[in-house]
């Protein structure tokens, strides 16, 4: 184990246990393999909104929540820990190391008071291996049996009492998706917390024994124990039944149809996002530019600040910034909701299968598809999601590739630019940008593998395919809200601050032109800074200071590009990015001038620069946390140089052709 891993484990351990010691409540650790309903159960028990879904390894951080155990003799509130998904105590990834450490490697007195193991009734043998290992330690254990409906539909019958006898710990049947069996679970956990720990089963290999023949022999013994328990406590049909999921998989994972359906699904997600979100965005924007601004203006006028710089800051800095942030909410919410539905339905695991070969061309396993697809929503959680990859080099490479996935923040810029330069064709322009984003990820990944990581092997694809399920509104809504909240928390402050800073720079005059708060934008510090940078973009066809200033602000957050333009041109921000109005005319005129009349080529070059350069400072902060400052700086250099080179090539080729 590397030092970094040790540090990560240690910090996680402290974070988890520091609070536990402080509140003095009993600690119940929730563990289980991927796709058994662990995170859903955590949400149902605590009311907390944790990441949930059908993706193997979705839970990548230790979550905490409070679980109230009601009833006579109940201990009241306990602290529930949601540990990273693990099918055993033999870790391959850093997340699984955390799970093992928190459960058994810490001193006995620091272990949780009870371990609640979530076991999938439809895949008993596989799920019970973790129970077999945990029973080798001095722990109180309760088994929560989920997926009972799936097991029944497959003809598998589980005798709960018999299973409890066989594994030597209480077993409770649950359906966390429908919140069934939770009271019974609370009662069983309450009494188990008061009861003595069960006798330890068998033996476990001592430290350092891993990877030896003895260790494998112990694993065989565990499987034999599990098999005996399963045989005695359940019955199943003699032959495998072909399930409805199998019939669906015959289409969705098929060699030709599978990738086509995947592409169609991604296309539908982006079409729905762009068309459905637009009226909601318009409504929110109208609210802020209309009643909210009017109200604030009246209020400021009443206190005598209507025409002061303070009034300008409140109206054009704070309200404009918050308003812009909120207009993104429908867009982000829809994207997150659709991705949550795809995850909850079980399709995302199939998408990993379909994309596995593609990912292999760049040396990454199919699992790396998860962070990359999350990146199309927002790069920040995508970088965090790279922790599902066990190999450090895979994590590093995926983290470097995530910024090239086109996040929803970039979508608004595409829509505005498309509406200005390609009216009536926004859908196709946006789809092209997403295809280019995928190609960019593949090309950069291939280049990195061919240069920096020539020896990197590819991890084999062995992925569990959960049965398809009808997504539940509660679950999809919870995931959407969780991600939306994360976006608002992570990016909100930065966006509002960026808008405020842009306003401030516009208020500062350069070389004696006017006074603070009373200066034309062309003669402000903002324009001065952008003019310094602008010549660098001349070969790409957008070398004017207005475009450069939007790109500078876009480095902080892409969401701020549109409002930056509206401030720069002193034009009202368009109520609808599909109808850019006066702002569109100004932008088009400047592009025409700076590109020498090759407006279309310059617009494509600008779009590609927006796609390829650094997404936002929030992503950089997350990258620094995951891969360190040096690799983050390398990534920024890569993004800027690639974005500039591609934009120049696109413009120059477009100019020659056009």
């Amino acid at each position, binding site marked *: 184990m590397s030092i970094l891993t040790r540090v990560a484990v240690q910090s996680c351990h402290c974070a988890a246990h520091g609070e536990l010691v402080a509140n003095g409540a009993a600690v119940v650790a929730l563990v289980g*393999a991927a796709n058994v309903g662990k995170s859903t159960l955590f949400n149902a028990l605590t009311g907390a909104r944790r990441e949930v879904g059908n993706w193997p390894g979705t839970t990548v951080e230790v979550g905490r929540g409070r679980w109230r155990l009601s009833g006579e003799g109940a201990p009241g509130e306990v602290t529930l820990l949601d540990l990273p998904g693990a*099918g*055993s105590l*033999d870790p*391959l990834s850093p997340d699984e190391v955390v799970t093992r450490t928190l459960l058994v490697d810490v001193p006995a007195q620091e272990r949780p008071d009870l371990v609640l193991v979530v076991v999938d009734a*439809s*895949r*008993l*043998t*596989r799920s019970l*291996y973790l129970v077999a290992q945990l029973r080798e330690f001095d722990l109180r254990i309760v088994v929560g049996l989920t997926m009972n409906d799936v*097991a029944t539909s*497959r003809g*598998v019958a589980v005798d709960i009492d018999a299973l409890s006898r066989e594994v030597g710990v209480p077993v409770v049947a649950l359906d966390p998706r429908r919140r069934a069996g939770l009271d019974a679970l609370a009662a069983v956990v309450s009494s188990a917390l008061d009861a003595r720990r069960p006798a330890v089963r068998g033996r476990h290999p001592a430290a350092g024994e891993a*990877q030896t023949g003895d260790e*494998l022999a112990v*694993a065989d013994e565990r*499987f034999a124990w599990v098999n005996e328990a399963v045989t005695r406590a359940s019955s*199943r049909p003699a032959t*495998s039944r*072909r399930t409805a*999921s*199998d019939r669906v*998989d*015959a289409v969705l*994972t*098929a*060699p*030709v149809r*599978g*990738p086509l359906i995947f592409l169609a699904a991604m296309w539908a997600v982006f079409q729905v996002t762009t068309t459905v979100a637009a009226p909601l965005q318009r409504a929110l924007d109208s609210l802020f530019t209309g009643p909210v601004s009017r109200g604030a203006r009246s209020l400021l006028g009443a206190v005598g600040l209507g025409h002061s710089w303070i009034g300008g800051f409140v109206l054009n800095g704070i309200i404009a910034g918050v308003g812009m942030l909120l207009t993104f909410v429908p867009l982000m919410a829809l994207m997150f909701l659709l991705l949550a539905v795809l995850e909850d339905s079980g399709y995302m*695991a*199939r998408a*990993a*299968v*379909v994309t*596995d*070969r*593609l990912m*292999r061309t760049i040396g990454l396993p*199919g699992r790396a598809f998860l962070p990359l697809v999350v990146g199309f929503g927002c790069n920040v959680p995508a970088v965090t999601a790279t922790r599902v990859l066990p190999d450090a080099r895979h994590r590093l490479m995926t983290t470097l590739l995530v910024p090239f996935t086109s996040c929803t923040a970039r979508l608004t810029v595409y829509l505005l630019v498309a509406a200005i330069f390609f009216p009536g064709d926004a859908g196709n322009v946006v789809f092209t940008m997403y295809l280019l984003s995928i190609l960019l990820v593949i090309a950069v990944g291939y280049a990195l593998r061919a240069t920096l990581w020539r020896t990197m092997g590819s991890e*084999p*694809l*062995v*992925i*569990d*395919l959960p*049965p398809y399920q009808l997504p539940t509104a509660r679950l999809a809504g919870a995931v959407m809200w969780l991600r939306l909240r994360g976006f608002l928390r992570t990016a909100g402050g930065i966006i509002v601050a960026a808008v405020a800073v842009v306003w401030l720079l516009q208020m500062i005059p350069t070389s004696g032109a006017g006074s603070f708060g009373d200066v034309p934008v062309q003669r402000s510090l903002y324009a001065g800074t952008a003019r310094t940078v602008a010549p660098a973009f001349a070969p790409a066809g957008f070398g004017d200071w207005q475009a450069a200033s939007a790109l500078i602000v876009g480095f902080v957050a892409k969401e701020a590009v549109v409002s930056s333009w509206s401030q720069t041109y002193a034009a009202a921000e368009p109520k609808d990015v599909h109808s850019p109005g006066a702002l569109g005319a100004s932008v088009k005129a400047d592009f025409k001038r700076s590109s020498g009349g090759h407006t279309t080529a310059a617009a494509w070059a600008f779009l590609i620069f927006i796609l390829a350069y650094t997404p936002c400072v929030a992503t950089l902060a997350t990258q620094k946390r995951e891969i360190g400052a040096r690799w983050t700086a390398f990534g920024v250099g890569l993004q800027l140089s690639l974005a500039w080179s591609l934009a120049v090539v696109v413009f120059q080729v477009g100019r020659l052709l056009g």
Partner: protein
Amino acid sequence: MAAPLLPAGRARRVAELGLRAGCRVTVLLRTAGGGRVIAVEDARIAVDAETLRRLPLGPLEAVAPCRRQVGRRLRRSAARAGCAA
């Protein structure tokens, strides 16, 4: 299935998924990229072609309707993968 021809860590991981010596494996589907979906007990596991080659399977069994879909191609590729069809 006989013992997987995989490194210890990887062999342990596939064993956790139910793929271990002596288990009954049914090949269900051919997937995009040349892999397979296999049934182990009631679990469905997608495996890439290279890993499948390292899982020494005995007589190949396919669920009847799927066998019709995959047909000879599946049998040929399974034979290439070292599985007796």
